[in-house]
Every structure is written in structure tokens, then in C-alpha cells.
């Protein structure tokens, strides 16, 4: 069988190497090669998505497996993945190269490839060290895809760390003035979590041994009859959650995010916020929830509390930011809080809520689309004026009507206007939370107020109102004028806009993937 998933993962990596070897002066060749590779990968991913949509009797996603607490086997039905690839690597330690997809990973894989295409296209203005930049972008894509497609915990960890390296270089090498600080802070926060997860993975393989055989294969573990006692589950859950909580991030572990998001160049921020943050939520869903159901049940209130605090605190923080990227960064944490809340909307019996998970996954995709659009627009704006401070702007809608409209659409999508994409996901997720825990539901829903407020504040301060008399915006206008979105930039944003409307009107196809 053709190793489709491996191709999807390693095509960008190879493409990155090819890009590095192209002659430096052929700037356009370099750009179009990178973009072509990203496109090809997107097409392959779409192919897999279509194939997945065909009826197939055996696939049952992990997301829908009812979690049963207690001594019974954690899974009711056997868990399988589609398009599995399996290669023995270090069988003595249970380490194998195994890949597979289920509904959730199909969605996130396609999202990642789509966002890479968009972000590489948005990076056409990068001039400094272009080849390395694009190679790192493609490597980041490889790492992310690997995270979503790996079904062996060791392999998952390899990709998890692999995506950190390009992210570190991209933030630190092409970012703003405080890039080194931001990049190192980002990696250290992530590394603490990751290393704890590494300890957890080693321990997990150790506990799931039969005889002298260790295993780290997800399917084997989920279908095994070994049941970890609840203390072990608790510690392992915490070790895994450390990595995911930093990546998502949950609130006490979030302080790397505003720095990294605001210092990184806009397309990189879009990749980090749109795709990489989803890796954390995906980890919660795929590993924490299914591997340690008892611990998930016990700790769900804790995680939910942190998520609620994050939702409200970061929404309030977003209200007072003057830097547009920081505003979006805090809004991003707040929205991811809703996703986490949906994932951990367990019933009193410890059963995962179908709606909660449906909504969470839907929202992962939607948030990825919306936040990418927002960061890119802010990036385009900053490229014209050299400033991200809200105070410097005002009345831009007259000068930049198209950009103002696009920003408005993205903002409305972000605040969850019915008819646009985010509404369905957020609604479903919160519905799931309500069903199982009304308090968290109420608190989580409160976010709607500040979310509308800060987004409207963004649009209002930047695009409406009175134009400032002086400052960098006026200076930029005098120097070279303030062109509206050109055709290239518009084409970059177009797929995102189409999806914002399409998913808003017709979210069912996405929930189909989650439920199958």
C-alpha cells in the first residue's frame, strides 16, 4: 500500500531541503517552489479527507469512545485508525513508526496544510534569509502533521519536539526587537512541559508491558486489558497535561504566548496560533482523555476551572491591550479555553460529552481559520505603517475599505456571530458543558460579552473613528501612501474568508468527521 500519510508528513521536509539548495538569487523560484510544495501537500491531505468521507465500517474514532470509569476495560469498541502504516523501529522498547488517521486528525491535518499554504503565501514579502525561512516553515508543517498523525507515543513525542525547533528559529530569527527573549521563553516553557511528558511516556511504556514486552503503540494500549490504577493514572495524566497545558495554553502556563505571538512575524504567529496551539488541545483529547479516563474524571474540574479562569482573565486582558497582536494573542488563549472546556465536559459518570467534543474539534478548525486571518490582516497593516499600536490608528476604513471589510468579517467570526464559522463550534462546546456542569457552562458563556467588546474595540479603534493627526500612520501615508489590500494579499485571505462563510452556514460536514 502506498504510504500516503508518510508522504504527507515528509513531503514538506523534503521540499524544505530542496528550497535550501536553490540558488539564492532566484527569489521567485524559491517562493513558488515552497508554495507549490505546500499546495501539493494540501491536495494530498484533501484527498485523504475525501477518502475518509467514504463509508467505512471499521473506523471508530477515539473521540467518540465512551469513557468508562472503574475496573472495566476503558474502551467499549476496539479502536482503529485508517490508512495505518507500521514499521518496526525499536520493538524492544515498544517504539514503532506507526501512523494512522481518525476523524479528528483528518480535520487537523487538512487544517494544517491549508494554513501552511496561506502562511507561506503571506510570507512572500520576507526578504532576509528567505530560503531558511521557508525551509523552517515547511519543517514546522512536517512536525505538526507528524503530531496529528502519529499513533505511537514515542513517534508523537519526536514530532512534538521537532516542531519546536523551527518555531524557535522562526520566532527568534525573523521576529521583532524582543525576539530572542520571546523565543527562548517560548521554548523553555514548552520544554519543561515536554520533558515531563517524556517522563510520562517512558513510564507509560513501562506500565503497559506484558511479560518483557513494552509497548507505546496507541492502538495496542487502548485495546489492552491492562488497567492502570488511579494513582498511576493521576501522575501520568499530570505529566502529559503539563506539556499540553503549556502548548494550549491554560492560564498559569500562558505567559510565553503573548510575547511569542507579538514578536514573531505575522505569518509565523498565524501558524503558531492557528495550527500549533491545536496540537495542545489535540493532545488533551487524544491522550489525556483516552489513556487516563479515571484521572481525567478526577481532574476534569481542575482543568475546567483553569480553562474558565483563562477564558475570562484573558478576555479581560485582551480588552486593555494596545498592541493589536497582543490583543489577538489574549483572545486566542480565551478561545482555546472554550475548546479545552468542551473537551473536559465530562458527565458525573465520567462520560465524555459528545457535543462537547464535537464542538471542541469544530472550534479547533474554526479558530484556526479565524485567528490566522486576523493575524495576517494585522500583519498586512503593520507592514504598511510599521506600528501595531491601536492608538496610532483610526478612520482607516476610508483609506482601506477592503481591508476594513475583511477585518470586520474576521472579527465578527471571532466573536461568534451566528451565520459565521465560530458560532456553531462554540455553541456546541458550551452546550456540552452546560449539560454536564451548569456552573462551568454559565461562566464559560460569559466570555461572549468581553469577546464582542474587545473585537469591536479593535475594529472601531483601527478602522472607524477619527484619523490621527500625526504619528506613524500619517507618516507612512505621506511617504508611500497607504495602499489597500492588493490582489495577492486578497487571494491569500480569500480561502479563509470562503471557509468562514461556508462553515458558518454548513457546519455539518465537519461534525461528520468528528463523529465517524
Amino acid at each position: 500500500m502506498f504510504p500516503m500519510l508518510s508522504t504527507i508528513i515528509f513531503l514538506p521536509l523534503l521540499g524544505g531541503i530542496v528550497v535550501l539548495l536553490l540558488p539564492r538569487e532566484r527569489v521567485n523560484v524559491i517562493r513558488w517552489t515552497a508554495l507549490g510544495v505546500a499546495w501539493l501537500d494540501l491536495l494530498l491531505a484533501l484527498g485523504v479527507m475525501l477518502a475518509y468521507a467514504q463509508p467505512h465500517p471499521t473506523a471508530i474514532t477515539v473521540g467518540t469512545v465512551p469513557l468508562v470509569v472503574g475496573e472495566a476495560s476503558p474502551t467499549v469498541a476496539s479502536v482503529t485508525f485508517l490508512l495505518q502504516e507500521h514499521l518496526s523501529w525499536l520493538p524492544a522498547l515498544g517504539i514503532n513508526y506507526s501512523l494512522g488517521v481518525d476523524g479528528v486528525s483528518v480535520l487537523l491535518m487538512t487544517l494544517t496544510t491549508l494554513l501552511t499554504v496561506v502562511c507561506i503565501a503571506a510570507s512572500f514579502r520576507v526578504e532576509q534569509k528567505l530560503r531558511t525561512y521557508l525551509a523552517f516553515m515547511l519543517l514546522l508543517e512536517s512536525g505538526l502533521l507528524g503530531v496529528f498523525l502519529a499513533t505511537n507515543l514515542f513517534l508523537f513525542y519526536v514530532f512534538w519536539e521537532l516542531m519546536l525547533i523551527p518555531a524557535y528559529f522562526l520566532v527568534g530569527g525573523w521576529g521583532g526587537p524582543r525576539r530572542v527573549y520571546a523565543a527562548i521563553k517560548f521554548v523553555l516553557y514548552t520544554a519543561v512541559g515536554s520533558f515531563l511528558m517524556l517522563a510520562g511516556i517512558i513510564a507509560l511504556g513501562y506500565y503497559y508491558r506484558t511479560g518483557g514486552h513494552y509497548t507505546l503503540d496507541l492502538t495496542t494500549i487502548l485495546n489492552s486489558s491492562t488497567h492502570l490504577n488511579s494513582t498511576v493514572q493521576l501522575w501520568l495524566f499530570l505529566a502529559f497535561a503539563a506539556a499540553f497545558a503549556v502548548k494550549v495554553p491554560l492560564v498559569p502556563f500562558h505567559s510565553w504566548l503573548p510575547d511569542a505571538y507579538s514578536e514573531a512575524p505575522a505569518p509565523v504567529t498565524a501558524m503558531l496560533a492557528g495550527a500549533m496551539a491545536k496540537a495542545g488541545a489535540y493532545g488533551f483529547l487524544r491522550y489525556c482523555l483516552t489513556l487516563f479516563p479515571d484521572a481525567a474524571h478526577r481532574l476534569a474540574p481542575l482543568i475546567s476551572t483553569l480553562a474558565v479562569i483563562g477564558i475570562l482573565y484573558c478576555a479581560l486582558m485582551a480588552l486593555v491591550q494596545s498592541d493589536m497582536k497582543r490583543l489577538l494573542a489574549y483572545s486566542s488563549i480565551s478561545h482555546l479555553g472554550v475548546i479545552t472546556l468542551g473537551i473536559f465536559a465530562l458527565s458525573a459518570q465520567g462520560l465524555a460529552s459528545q457535543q462537547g467534543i464535537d464542538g471542541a474539534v469544530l472550534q479547533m478548525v474554526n479558530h484556526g481559520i479565524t485567528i490566522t486571518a486576523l493575524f495576517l490582516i494585522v500583519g498586512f497593516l503593520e507592514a504598511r505603517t510599521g506600528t501595531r499600536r491601536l492608538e496610532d490608528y483610526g478612520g482607516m476604513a476610508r483609506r482601506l475599505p477592503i481591508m476594513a471589510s475583511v477585518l470586520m468579517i474576521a472579527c465578527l467570526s471571532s466573536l461568534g456571530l451566528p451565520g459565521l464559522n465560530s458560532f456553531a463550534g462554540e455553541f456546541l462546546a458550551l452546550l456540552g458543558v452546560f449539560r454536564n456542569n451548569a456552573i462551568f457552562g454559565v461562566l464559560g458563556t460569559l466570555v461572549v460579552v468581553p469577546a464582542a467588546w474587545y473585537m469591536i474595540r479593535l475594529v472601531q479603534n483601527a478602522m472607524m473613528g477619527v484619523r490621527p493627526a500625526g504619528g506613524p500612520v500619517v507618516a507612512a501615508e505621506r511617504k508611500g501612501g497607504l495602499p489597500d489590500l492588493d490582489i495577492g494579499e486578497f487571494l491569500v485571505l480569500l480561502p479563509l474568508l470562503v471557509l468562514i462563510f461556508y462553515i458558518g452556514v454548513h457546519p455539518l460536514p465537519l461534525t461528520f468527521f468528528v463523529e465517524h
Partner: protein
Amino acid sequence: MSFTYIASAADWARIAPELVLAGVALLILLVDLLLPQTGAVPRERGAANFFVLPLLALLGVLGALAATIVLFVVGDGQRAFFGLVGSDWGSLYAYLAILSAAGLGIIFSPAYLKRLKLVHQGEYYALFLAATLGMMLLAAATSFMTLFLGLETLSLALYILCGFVTRRQSSQEAGMKYFLLSSFASAFLLYGVALIYGATGTTRFGARGTSAFPGVLQFLQVHPQSTTLLLIGIGLLTVGFAFKVSAIPFQMWTPDVYEGAPAPVTAFMSVGTKAAALVAFARVFAVVLAPVAADWQAVVWVLAVLTMVGGNLLALVQRNAKRLLAYSSVAHAGYLLIGVVVGGATGLAAILFYLLCYAFLNAGAFGALSALERLDNSGCDREDLRGLWFRRPWLAGFLAFFLLGLAGFPPMAGFAAKYYLFFAALQGGHPELLLIGVLTSVLGMYYYLRLIAAMFMEPAREAQEEALEVSLALAVAGAGASAGVAPRVSGPLGRAASTRTGGAGTGTAGAAVAVKTAAQATTKRAPAAQQAPETREQATEEGALAGSSLSWTTWLGLGLAALGALALGTVLPFWLVDLALKAAGTL
């Protein structure tokens, strides 16, 4: 007692790798005499060709490697010379790591030697191979006598190699310091051996599962209670070994020696000595002294934890890349000691596999620095490395690759090695060591990434500052030339004439005489001064490298090390780990 000494041909075959190395070392001394010589005075006289001898040395290492592989396949794994030297798979596995490091060190050498005009190549490569031989002997020793023999062979050769750059004070200091402290540690070790001999009546280790050549192991199996004599002996042995593997609190020599020694030598010794000493440490403690494990395990546990925590903490504050790597190697010794504490087949296998991975990563990192190091040992500070990516992107890329590997990022070898070691810790019932190891790795990540940030994310020094420094250095160079302190240094290596601060004073003193030299140099550099600061910096660096037509060897070495590190982390572990597991059983 009568003793008939008959060494069979099989005995010689079992130490074939060592024999090859010894032969080639002698051959190198001979060939050195036959090569055409240059240099006016005897202390500057040496072979004019910088390629023949390293090639010969490399062939020697490859020959030894081939012999090792042959022994793997057809060897009987028995001990040679009545149980004095092992030819078991464990020793052979250690040979792989030692020979890889030696090979890489030799490949990095010619460009370095030529650039720094170190002409005494015959001695250099012969000593290099002698040190390798000593390391292999130490790793394969199955008797305290052979162990000491190997230890002294490698140490004596390395004392000289560390002080090889005679025109550099820090190099001489490194040699001297290493000599004094290391002899001290050897004395401890020897006294420990004497006491153990007193307690057990034998210096032979004795093999597991056979009573062919009974030794300490067999004695302890019969008398598992340790006497005071034995305890003191074990304590002294611990001190000696801890010094050799640079475990805290016996690490003081490491940073000074690693920093002062020539970078290719550091690349080799940081890995080779560590590999040999750790395998010997593991064999003596985790195998031979295993019956009395309760007596030493706590001590080694404390050593391991101290070394992991302390090494990483001390590395945090270093500003010089060589010193930083020295402390990081201390930290890695700490991780490796986990394997000694854990013991058993998995613990020992983890040590062996880790050493092999570490050989490629660390040798690669020091090899990259060897292309930067100047005669006065400058060039490796974080300040010097700033913006390296913009000046020499490939070198910076390689260095970053090795640093990331050392930090434990997949898919490089460092990750696989660490994973296996931590796994061994958990399996051996030491989850606390797993946790400490994991958390100290985070500390490690910070300093490696800080260095990478300096290379990739910070601009090179300000143009003005740079210009000032160049003029100052030129004045100093002139001063040096006039005073006759370091005549050969003044020309192309102008910047390297003296340390910058110390040079300022002499610069003014000799300024009058310096005018001419400086003026010449200035006219030469004048066009460069008008270029952008980055290009100019590049020009100076390449000026410093002028005359090193052999720089391709450095690239070759870096490429091989990178390839090895990548292969060990991705495709090879599946059988190298199995092999290590089998090898560990034979130690």
C-alpha cells in the same frame, strides 16, 4: 610459585585493534622523519605536508575499526592474556565510540594545525593514537593492572596534547593542570587498587558465569560482606574514577583543560576519555563490585545527582562556548552515571549506546569550534559567536545542529540516547533519577539555546566597536613584532597577538615601532574597512583562516559527525540498542 608465560596467537588476535593502532603510531613517527621539513630553527621545524600524516593516522583508526568489526563477527569474546584484557562485545562497543571520536578528532586536526602553524605533526598524531590506544585498553581492562596501564597511557599522551600549542599560555596551563590533578587522581586510584588487592588477594576482575580466571568478582561472591580494607579501597577507587569522568565535585580541571587544549584534541578527549573511563567505571562497579552494591550505590547516586544538577547549573553562567561545552560534558557525565547506579544489562547498555551517540555530537560541536578558534584561544566567546549565521551560515548551522542534539532534541542521537538511559533508570527502579535527569535537561536546554540565539538571532558587534578593536589589535600586533615576543604571530594573525585587554598596554608601549607594521596592515585592510560591517567581519575571519587550504577536511568531519548523529537517532537505534544490550551482558 612458578609461572609459565605462554601467550597464544589467539590472545594477540583478541587485541588486534590495539595492535593496529600501536603499529600505525610507530609508523607515523617513522614517516615523519622521511617527510621534507620546513622551519629555520629546530623548534619550528616540522613536516611541510599537512596531509600525509593525518591520512596515515586516519587509516590506522579505520584499520582498528575494521579489526573491531571483525572481532564482533568472528571473535570468541574471551579474555586475553590470562584474564587481563577483554575482547568481549562490551569492550568492542566501547571501541566503536572511542574510535569514532578519534577518527573525527583526526579529521578536524590538519586544518587546525595548519592554520595555527603547529608543525610538530609526527608527535601530534602519534600521541593521538597512543591516547586512543590507552583509552581502548582502559575500556577493555579486566584487571586492575591493565586498567591502570590504560589510564596512564591515555593520560600521559593527553598531557602533552593539551599543552601542544606552546605559544598559548592557556594551552600550557591546561597541560600542566591536567597533569598535576590527574596524577593526583591516579594516585588515589592506585592506592585503592592496592587496598582492594589486599582485601581480596587478586587484581583480576574475574568473568561472570565462568571460573576460568577467578578474580575479585569470584572472591566477593563467596565473601559478600565487605571488610574495612575493601571499603576504603572502593572509596579511593570512586575518587579516582569520578575524577576521570569529571563528576562533581571532582570536575574542577575539566573546564580549564577543555578550554585551553586545542579544539580538535578537546573534541577527541572529551568523548574518548569519558567513554573509556565510564566503561571502566561501569565494569568495575556495576559488574565486579556488584555483590557489594549496597556499599557504593548511594555514593554513586549522590555523585550522579550532584553532577547532573551542578554541571547544568554551572554551564548556565558560562560565556565561552568551549567552557560551556566543558560544563555540559560534566552534566552528560552525570546522566551517564545514572547507568552505573542502575546497573544491570539495561543500565550498562544505556551507557554504551549513550557514549556512541555522544561521541558524534560532542566531537562535532568541538570540531565546529575548532574552525573558529584563534591562536590566542579567542574566537569562541559568545560575543565572537554573535551573528555567526550571517557570516558563516553553514558553520553556524552545523554547530546549532550539534547543540540541539546535545540538548536532547529529536531526531538527533542525543534524544534516543537520553530516552534509553531514562528508560533504564525507570526499569532499574530509580524513578527519581528519571525525574531529576528530565528536569536538569530543561536547564541544559537553556544554555544550548542561548548560544544558538547568539549565533542566529543577534546581530554581530557594532561596526564602530569592531573598527576600534581592529586598530587596537593592529597596534598590538606591531608591538609584538617589535618586541620580538611572538614574531610569527604578527602578520596574518594580527588580531591574535595577545589577549585584548592585556594587549592594550603593550600596544601603547611599542606604538612607535609598530607604526610601520600597522601601516602596512592598514593599507591592506583599507578597502575592507569601507565595506559593510558584516562583510568586513567575514573578511577578517577569512584572513585568519588564510593558508588553510585544508579546511575541506573540517567540513568532511562536520558532515560525517552530523550524518552519524542523525543516523544514530533515526534509523540505526533498532539494532545498535539491541547490540548494546547484548554487549552489556558480556562486560
